[in-house]
């Protein structure tokens, strides 16, 4: 997989080479669009338009993270859709992800890279709903960094904002989501609930953390 070669060929007009980039990034691009818009049709439109725009504007890509450059185009289209949605509000579809129903939840010890846990449908729905309460700017950064695992710098490239703004949006977005989850802690499974509840359970939190390790 030589992304640089594909990009070079795509710049020369090779659609098949560009399609290899599409294959590599369509999941990430569509996910960002869908998590921002919560509407399959709107997200699909934004994604398709973004890939077309990317191919046409490939001469503007001068190196760096192609993924971030592409996602910036996706976000632009997403914002366009959001503005259109604000003018003509439509009922968003139910967020149905490819989740697995599992009551078993494991919280791993927080390390440099948080490990994934298996989430139930209820928790997923809660998180998705919580994301929707964030402002689009905060939501975008939270999705890029926490859902898609991008670095601060990649988020800077994808949003066009400076580093300080990205850090601020990420922190406030996370805190807002944390508040939302705390408000709906009753929906969360027991093993998670105590993370979000008030100080009265802080001792329990500490002990649970110790045993879960």
């Amino acid at each position, binding site marked *: 997989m030589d992304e640089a070669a594909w990009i070079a060929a795509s710049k020369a*007009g090779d*659609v098949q080479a*560009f*399609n290899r980039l*599409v*294959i590599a990034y*369509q*999941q990430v*691009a*569509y*996910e960002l669009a*869908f*998590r921002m818009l919560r509407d*399959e049709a709107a997200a*699909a439109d934004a*994604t*398709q338009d973004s*890939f*077309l725009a990317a*191919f*046409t504007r490939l001469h503007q890509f001068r190196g760096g993270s192609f993924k971030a450059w592409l996602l910036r185009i996706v976000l632009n289209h997403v914002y366009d859709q959001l503005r259109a949605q604000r003018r003509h509000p439509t009922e968003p579809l139910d967020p149905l*992800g*490819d*989740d*697995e129903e599992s009551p078993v939840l494991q*919280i*791993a010890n*927080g390390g*440099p890279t*948080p*490990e*994934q*846990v*298996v*989430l139930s449908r209820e*928790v*997923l729905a809660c*998180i*998705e709903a919580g994301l929707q309460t964030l402002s689009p700017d905060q939501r975008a950064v*939270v999705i890029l960094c*926490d*859902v898609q*695992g991008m670095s*601060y710098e990649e988020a800077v490239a994808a949003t066009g904002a400076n580093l300080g703004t990205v*850090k*601020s949006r*990420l*922190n406030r977005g*996370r*805190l807002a*989501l*944390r508040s939302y*989850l*705390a408000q709906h802690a009753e929906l969360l499974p027991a093993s*998670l609930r105590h*993370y*979000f509840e008030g*100080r009265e359970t*802080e001792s329990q*939190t500490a002990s649970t953390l110790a045993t879960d390790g």
Partner: protein
Amino acid sequence: MGLRFLNRKKETDHDRVREQLSEYLDRRLSPEERAAVELHLSDCQPCSDELRALQATTQLLHSLPSVRLPRSFLLEAAPRPAPLPRAFFWMRTAAAVAATAFVVLIAAPMVMPSGRAPASAPALYQPMKAASDARAGDQATASQATAPAAAARGAEPAAAAQERAAAPASAPAPAAALSAPAATVVAPAAPAAPGAAVGGAPAAEEPRKLTVPARAPSETVAQPARPAAAGPAPTELSNETGGSAPSLLSLLQTASGGLALLMATATAGLWWSHRRRNR
């Protein structure tokens, strides 16, 4: 007093640390900043709780499963504009060639000194009469008309004219008819023609009749200017534009002009529709 100060400081610390929790979690703080945060956290349960909650939140976000793709987003056709169809290029060339030919065919008669007025209509309608009227002059022109080869060669005009005049009318007639245009323009043949023309006048007349009737009268009319005639065949042809039968020149002019117009229109139409389709 002091306690209030301390409380206010702690509040400021709370805010500062709260703002930095994400960076602390992501290990983006400098060693000094991290030490300051950890110092605060060691003495502040609420902030510690906040940190743990934030960590759980990011872990939950990180655990969100992939979203199912509703379809493929592969590009199917080249979004770049399609190239012009090949027909466009040869049509354009044909239009240019035809237009050039048209211009040449129109301009040449005007540019070339032929000594013959274009479309001398009145005389054209009396080919026979004019021929008989100007027999003397006609003989000279007739001999020239019947000396096609002479016109071309310009070396033995008299001999050729005699030869032709002596030969049966049918044979030299078609030849004379075809080359008559060329014959008249040959100035060198003129002086020698009269001599040989006398003998070949009767025979010459027939070919002349067979040729475009307008020939004789136009020749007669332009006789004084004949010595100056030195143009190519088309010059002769231009004299018959007003004739009852279309001359070769006018046919070519019309054909080239029409072809140029047709090709130009088709080229323009092709280019325009191509642009519309690819906008």
